[in-house]
């Protein structure tokens, strides 16, 4: 039974819902007035380290961050 639901344009372009939702949220945050804009941007900053594993051993971790490096 083929599903006949209409696919949203972003889904047919290969984007997932979360990516779409995050892009919308970022655009809205960019259109805010100060000081709300800086509050919103600082609230959404992330800082994390990713470690890929191969053969049961951790490889070099990469740090992904929105805050400026010291």
């Amino acid at each position, binding site marked *: 039974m083929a599903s006949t639901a209409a696919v949203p344009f972003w889904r047919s372009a290969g984007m997932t819902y979360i990516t779409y939702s995050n892009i919308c949220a970022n655009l809205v945050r960019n259109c*805010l007035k100060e000081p709300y804009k800086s509050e919103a941007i600082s609230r959404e900053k992330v800082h994390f380290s990713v470690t890929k594993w191969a053969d049961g051993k951790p490889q070099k971790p990469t740090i992904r961050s929105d805050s400026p490096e010291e």
Partner: protein
Amino acid sequence: MFRQAASRLLTRSTTTLRRLYSTEVATDASSGDAAFVEAWKKVAPNIDPPKTPIQFMEPRPPTPSTLPSKLTVNFVLPYAAELSKAEVDMVIVPATTGQMGILPGHVPTIAELKPGLLSVHEGNDVKKYFISSGFAFVHSNSYADILAVEAVPLDRIDPAQVQKGLSEFTQKLNSASTDLDKAEAQIGVDVHSALNSALTG
């Protein structure tokens, strides 16, 4: 072959029990999981059995038999609860299928939201928010859960930025080459035009 199917259907409906929906299962778990308590008492009869997670949960508010007069709204964002169990008269949400009004006694619905205006009507007050995207769930007991990623009151939006963004993305849409670029530019145009109409309308 079809006669067999018909008779099989008949027997299926009369003999097998229908499984209960989650809204019909008893939610009173204050006494705890009976099987667990029994097993505990066999092993440690002098110690009180510990509470299980279900005893810490509030039971789902029951569906009233008469139409309730107010809608209870939980309007939440990832970082804060804008409205928590607020009793209101009506909520208008920007669903992908258009502006949808939710009144007490609305049929249970799950609606995906598009960037647009959300208005909460309480008596004569109307509070408006611009939502970036999210979902709205309406339950049978006249509870509405509205989940949004970003929701801002209209006075926090900068019209100059909106115009700039709109022209920028319209330009990008015209010059976009790959599918992904086109999709991103289209999203930009949609969001900014929704912001624009929210500010002016």
